[in-house]
C-alpha cells in the first residue's frame, strides 16, 4: 500500500479522534467523576473521602427532592404533551397552503431564539397579578378576572409549563412541518381517492407517518424537561416556597449554594440515569439500522 492510500485510510479516524477524545474526557470522564463524588462527603469543593451510599440515603429523605421529582413528573408530562399538541396542530394548519406562512413561521419560531433571562423577565411580568395580565384586565374593566397562578403553590408549576411551552412549541412546530413536507404527495392523493375525509387522512395516514418527527420531538423535549433549570430560576426562583423546585434546580442549589456537593452529585447521577433511560433506547433504535 502506498503512503497516500494508507494516510487516506487513517485520516477519517484521525479527524474523528479529537471529538471522540474530548467526548470521552469532557463527558464520560466527568460523569465518572460525578458518580465518584456522589459517594464522597464533598461539601464546598470535591473531596475524596468515601462515605458509601450515604448521600443517596439523604437525598431520598429530603422532602425537597420528593417535591422536585413530583414537579418534574407534572412538568415533563404536561410540557411534552402540550408542546407536541400545539406543535403538531400548528404544523398541520400551517401546511394548508396558508397565505402569509412566511410571516407566521418566524413568529412561531422566535421564542426559541431568546435566552432564559429574557423569557423569564417577560413572563414573570405578564404573570404577575400586580402588573401583568390580571392587572391589565382589571384596568380594562374585567375586574373579576383572576390569574394568580404564579403566586399560588398548587398552580405555580403550571406557569413554568406555560412559559416553557411558549418557548419551544414553535420549534416543535418546525419539526413537524418538516415531517409533513416530507410525506409523499401521491400517498395523500391515494387516500383521497380511497375516500378518506381530511380527519381520517390525518388520523390514519399522515400522523402515523410522522413517527420519526414524534420521536425526535419527544427526545428533544424530554431532555429539555429534565435539564430545565434556567427558566425556573428566572421565572419563579423555585417558589412560592419550594413549589416549583425541579431536579435540576435542586442539584444546582445543593451543589453550589448549600455546599452539599455530595448530595448534589447523587441527584445528578439520578438525573443522568433518567436521561439515559430515555436516550439509550432511542439511540439504539436510531443506530441499529444505518441508513
Amino acid at each position, binding site marked *: 500500500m502506498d503512503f497516500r492510500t494508507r494516510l487516506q485510510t487513517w485520516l477519517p479516524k484521525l479527524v474523528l479522534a479529537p471529538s471522540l477524545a474530548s467526548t470521552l474526557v469532557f463527558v464520560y470522564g466527568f460523569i465518572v467523576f460525578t458518580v465518584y463524588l456522589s459517594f464522597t462527603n464533598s461539601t464546598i469543593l470535591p473531596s475524596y473521602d468515601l462515605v458509601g451510599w450515604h448521600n443517596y440515603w439523604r437525598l431520598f429523605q429530603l422532602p425537597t427532592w420528593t417535591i422536585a421529582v413530583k414537579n418534574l413528573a407534572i412538568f415533563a408530562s404536561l410540557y411534552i404533551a402540550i408542546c407536541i399538541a400545539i406543535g403538531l396542530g400548528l404544523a398541520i394548519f400551517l401546511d394548508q397552503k396558508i397565505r402569509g406562512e412566511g410571516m407566521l413561521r418566524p413568529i412561531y419560531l422566535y421564542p426559541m431564539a431568546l435566552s432564559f433571562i429574557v423569557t423569564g423577565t417577560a413572563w414573570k411580568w405578564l404573570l404577575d397579578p400586580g402588573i401583568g395580565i390580571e392587572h391589565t384586565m382589571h384596568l380594562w374593566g374585567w375586574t373579576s378576572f383572576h390569574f394568580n397562578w404564579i403566586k399560588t403553590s398548587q398552580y405555580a408549576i403550571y406557569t413554568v409549563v406555560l412559559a416553557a411551552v411558549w418557548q419551544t412549541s414553535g420549534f416543535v412546530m418546525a419539526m413537524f412541518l418538516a415531517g409533513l413536507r416530507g410525506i409523499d404527495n401521491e400517498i395523500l392523493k*391515494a387516500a383521497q381517492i*380511497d*375516500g378518506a375525509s381530511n380527519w381520517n387522512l390525518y388520523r*390514519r395516514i399522515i400522523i*402515523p*407517518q410522522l*413517527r420519526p418527527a414524534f420521536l425526535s420531538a419527544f427526545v428533544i423535549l424530554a431532555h429539555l424537561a429534565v435539564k430545565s433549570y434556567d427558566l425556573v430560576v428566572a421565572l419563579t426562583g423555585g417558589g412560592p416556597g419550594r413549589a416549583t423546585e425541579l431536579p435540576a434546580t435542586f442539584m444546582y442549589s445543593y451543589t453550589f449554594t448549600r455546599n452539599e456537593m455530595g448530595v448534589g452529585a447523587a441527584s445528578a447521577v439520578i438525573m443522568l440515569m433518567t436521561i439515559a433511560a430515555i436516550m439509550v433506547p432511542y439511540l439504539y433504535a436510531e443506530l441499529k439500522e444505518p441508513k
Partner: protein
Amino acid sequence: MGFLDISNVTKSYGAVEVLHKIDISVQEGEFLVLVGPSGCGKSTLLNMIAGLEGISSGEIAIRGSTMNGVHPSKRNIAMVFQSYALYPNMTVGQNITFGLEMHGTPKPEREAAMKKVAAMLQIEQLLDRKPGQLSGGQRQRVAMGRALVRNPDVFLFDEPLSNLDAKLRVDMRTEIKKLHQNLGTTIVYVTHDQIEAMTLSTRIAVMNKGYVQQLGTPKEIYDTPANIFVATFMGSPAMNIMPAKVVMADGAPHAEVTDADGTARRLRFSQANMAEWAGREIILGIRPEAITDPDGADRKSSNIQSLTNRVNVTEPAGSDTFVTTTLSGGDAIARMRADAEVRAGQIFDFAVDMDKAVAFDPRTEDRIPA
C-alpha cells in the same frame, strides 16, 4: 357519448396553460393509454379525471353525469401511482381494505373482498407485512390490489411500471393485460414507454406539450402516424426520417434519396397518390424493420425495393442485428435477422418494404394521406 367523456378540457396553472382543449371519449371496457414525453400533461389529465386537480374549463363526465366538482372519493374510480403510494404505516391487508373502510363497508365484507383480491394477485402470504418489507414487484401488486378491491368504474394508472426493472416490467405488463381481459373494466393508463402503450392499449392518445397529437388504435398510431412527432415517438428504434424528393419514373412516383456516397437512389412508392407531389420535397419515413436483408424481407409485401448502400455499423443484439447506414445525409437504422451476413464497411443490398413507408409534408410535418 362514451363512458368517460373528456370534453374541451383545459388546465391552467396561473397564466400557464398546460392542457389545451382536450377531447377524448372512452368507451366502457376500453384500455386507453396516454403516452407522451415528460411534462406533456399526462399526469395532470389523469389527476383531473380522478378529481385531484380542478378543471379550468371544459367538462369531464362518467356515464354521462358530469364529474366537475365531485370529490375524488365520490367518483368511483381507483388509481395506481408510479410510486405506488402505499401507506407505509399499514400492513398490506390494511392498505387494501382502507378504501372500503372509508366507505363504511362492514368488516366481514372487507375481509372477504381482501381475500379474493389477494388470491387473484397471489399476495396472500404478504398480507401482514408492511410495505417497507416488500420488493418492487410485490409493492406494485399491492397497489393494484388496493385499486381492484374497490371494484371501480374506471381504473387510472400513472406510470405504474416505471419503477420496476426491465424483466419485471415485462411480467407485470402481461399481468395487467390479463387483468383487463378478465375484468373488462375501463382503464386509463399513463406511460411514456411506447412498448407498454402498444401492447396494452385498445386505443392510444399520443400527447405533446398539452395537445393530443393523435388518438387511435395501436396499429393506426404505428402504421399511419398523424405527424412526424407521433411517427418518431412511437417505435424503438425510432422510425428513420429523411428528406426526399418525389420524382416520376416509369409512370410511378418514386422517392429520391441519396446513399452513403451521395449517389441518388430511387424507391418506388406503393401509394399512387404521391404522384401529386412530383417534383416537390417531402419527408420520407421508413421504420427500421422495413429495411432488412433480402432474405429476411416480408414475403407478403407487394413492394420490396432494393437499395444498395454502404454499411456503417452493425450491432448484433441477439434476436436481431441492427445495421446503421447513411441515407440522405443522416443515419438510418435497419433491423435484420440475427444471422444476417453483413459487415461494417460492406456495400450491401438492402431490401426496403415501401408498403410500410410513410411520407410527411415538410411544412406542416403532417402525414400525407395515402
